[in-house]
């Protein structure tokens, strides 16, 4: 069956530009998570959605980062005025519900490079 998809797979941008990263979760999954992974680092939690609402945004590293989810499905992570330290792989995951016992299914990630 269809898994979590993300687009673009790779994004190269110049410092100061805005970027949008897209995540299409598995159909019917109400929980959606964003993580990022910097080179040689572990996964860093950014934000999670339950339906269209984001009860926990505390992982967003700065106010340049924002995310939204519409229709309980597609989510967009937006980074404004990108900086070189934003370069990382951004991973999206979805799950059936919001409990920690729920398995998260990850997408392939978007590799962001800020020059």
């Amino acid at each position: 069956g269809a898994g979590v998809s993300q687009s673009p797979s790779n994004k190269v941008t110049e410092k100061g530009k805005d970027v949008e990263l897209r995540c299409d979760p598995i159909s019917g999954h109400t929980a959606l998570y964003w993580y990022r992974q910097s080179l040689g680092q572990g996964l860093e939690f950014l934000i999670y959605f339950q339906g269209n609402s984001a009860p926990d945004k505390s992982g967003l590293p700065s106010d340049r980062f924002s995310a939204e989810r519409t229709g309980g499905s597609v989510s967009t992570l937006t980074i404004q005025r990108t900086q070189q330290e934003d370069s990382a792989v951004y991973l999206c995951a979805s799950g059936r519900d919001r409990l920690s016992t729920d398995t998260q299914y990850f997408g392939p990630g978007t590799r962001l490079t800020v020059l």
Partner: protein
Amino acid sequence: LAKTTQPISMDSYEGQEVNITCSHNNIATNDYITWYQQFPSQGPRFIIQGYKTKVTNEVASLFIPADRKSSTLSLPRVSLSDTAVYYCLVGDSYILTGGGNKLTFGTGTQLKVEL
């Protein structure tokens, strides 16, 4: 947040059993322990999850002592294809804590399996 600590890397040979231990001294009562496997350029893949004692599936076993301050992922008879990064994840339950589903990944353990 329950922080996790894992060895940075481990080496093994085909056919051997590999045990990777994760420390999570601040684990909360409602936390579950989940292990993920990640290959290069891919998102993490669920391996196993547990709350206490021992859990076994077709891929691995998870040992959790009574105090739950650590857990050990056991991979029986590893092969070259098990070469990957293994992440230990400790998660809060949104419903019980009311604080959002915060998920913390460790830095991961790079397992290298050789012939």
